C-alpha cells in the first residue's frame, strides 16, 4: 500500500480534480451562511452573549434572513448544466456502500475497507445536515411567525430548533477539525484538486474508477 510519507522519487505528483467550481462556490456560500446563523443564533439564545450584544431585533433579522437564504446556494448550484458535479456528489453521498457499513462496524479498524469518493463519516454528516436544514427552516418559521400556529407547536418548534442547533454545532465543529487536520482534503475544497496518491490512499474506490488520461 502506498504511504503518504513515502516520497515520490522521480515522479511528478499527479493531481486529480475533486470538486468543480460550482460545488466549491456552493460549499463556501453554505459555510458563510452557517457561520452567520450559528453566531447570531448563539447571541439570541445564550444569555451572557445576548446581554453583551443587545440589539435583539437586528440580530433576529440577520438570523432570519440568513436562514431563509440558506437553501438558495444548494438549489441554484445543483440546478442547470453547472450542477452536474454537485448532483453526482449528492448521489454518492446518498448511497452507502457495503464497505461504508463495514467501516462503521469496525470504526475504521478494518484495513481491507475500500472507500469511494466520500468517507462514511462525511456521508453521515451530509445526511444529517441535509435533514437539519428543512427541519430548522420549518421550526424557525413557526418561531418567526408564531401567530399562525398553535401555542404548543411554538414551544415544540423552539425545543426542536434548539436541540438540532446544538447537534449541528458539534457536527460543524467536527467537520472543521477534520478538514483542518487533513490539509490535502481541505485543498480539495479550496482549489479543487488533490494529490493522486492521497486519493488512492483515502478514497481508492473513487481513485480507481476515475478515467486516467
Amino acid at each position: 500500500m502506498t504511504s503518504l510519507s513515502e516520497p515520490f522519487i522521480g515522479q511528478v505528483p499527479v493531481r486529480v480534480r475533486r470538486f468543480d467550481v460550482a460545488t466549491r462556490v456552493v460549499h463556501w456560500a453554505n459555510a458563510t451562511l452557517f457561520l452567520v446563523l450559528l453566531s447570531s443564533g448563539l447571541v439570541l439564545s445564550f444569555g451572557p452573549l445576548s446581554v453583551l450584544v443587545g440589539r435583539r431585533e437586528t440580530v433576529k433579522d440577520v438570523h432570519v434572513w440568513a436562514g431563509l437564504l440558506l437553501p438558495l446556494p444548494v438549489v441554484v448550484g445543483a440546478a442547470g448544466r453547472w450542477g452536474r458535479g454537485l448532483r453526482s456528489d449528492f448521489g454518492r453521498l446518498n448511497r452507502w456502500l457495503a464497505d461504508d457499513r463495514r467501516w462503521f462496524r469496525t470504526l475504521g479498524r478494518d484495513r481491507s475497507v475500500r472507500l469511494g469518493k466520500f468517507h462514511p463519516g462525511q456521508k453521515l454528516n451530509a445526511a444529517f445536515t441535509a435533514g437539519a436544514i428543512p427541519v430548522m427552516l420549518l421550526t424557525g418559521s413557526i418561531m418567526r411567525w408564531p401567530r399562525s400556529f398553535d401555542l404548543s407547536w411554538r414551544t415544540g418548534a423552539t425545543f426542536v430548533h434548539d436541540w438540532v442547533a446544538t447537534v449541528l454545532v458539534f457536527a460543524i465543529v467536527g467537520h472543521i477539525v477534520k478538514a483542518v487536520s487533513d490539509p490535502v482534503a481541505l485543498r480539495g475544497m479550496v482549489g479543487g484538486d488533490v494529490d493522486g496518491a492521497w486519493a488512492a490512499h483515502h478514497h481508492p474506490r473513487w481513485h480507481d474508477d476515475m478515467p486516467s488520461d
Partner: protein
Amino acid sequence: MDDTGPATPAEAEVVDPGAPVGRRIVLGMLGLGVGGVLVGARLSDALSRLLAPITAADRTGLSDLLPAGGGFRIYTVTGSLPSADEASYRLTVGGLVDRPASLSVADLRAMPATSLTKDFQCVTGWRVHQVPWVGVRLADVLDRAGVQAGGARGTRATAVRFTSFDGSYTESLTMEQARRPDVMVAYSMQGGPISRAHGGPVRLYVAPMYGYKSCKWLSGIEVTDRVQEGYWERRGYDVDAWIGTSNGRDDEPV
C-alpha cells in the same frame, strides 16, 4: 474499467450502487422534526424538570448553553441592558398615596422580608422551576406609602402601575392583584442579589402571572385609578396574565 475481464467481487460492488441511506436519514429527520414540534412542549418541560437540579448547582453558567438547561432567557425591549448601581438605586412610590417615598435597596432590606420559591413561567413557553425569591411584599410597600382611601372625585385607588429604568417598559396590576401575598418587590433571587440581566437590583415578581408582568429594573410604583396597558399588552398580550388561563395557554398554574 476493463469490460472483458471476469467479474471480480470488487467489480460486483462497483455495480451495486449502495442503499440510499442518506435519503432515509433526511426523511427520518423530517419525521422526527415534525413529531418534535407536536410533542416537544411536553418533552421540553420534562427535560427541564430533569435538568433543574443540575443547572441550579452549576456555578459556571455553562449549562445555560444547553437548550433545555432550564435557565432563564434574557429579554430586553431596549437596545442595551439597563444598569443601575445598587448604592444609588431608588424606587419611587407615588400616585394616590399619602406618603410618597423614594426607597433605597437598604430601605427595602430593612422592611419585613418575604421569601417564595416558585416557578417562573414565560408566555413564550419556557419555565424555570423552583426559583427562590426574597423581597418585600408589594402590599407592605403600598401600606408604607399609605394608599389613599377615598380620594377626590373619580380618583379611587384601584390599580398600581410599574415603570422600569430601561425607559420603556411599563406594567400594571389591579389593587386586588397587587395585594396578593405572592406578589413581591424582589431584591434577591437564587440565593444572591438580582443580577443586571435578571432585572436587578430590584424587580417585581408576580408569581401567578406570566413573566412579562414581573417588571424588571423596577424604578417606579404608582397608585392609579385604573389599570393601564403595559408594554407587551399594547402588543397583544393579555392584561390579566394568569398562568394557565390567559394568552391561550394551558400551563400549570404557579
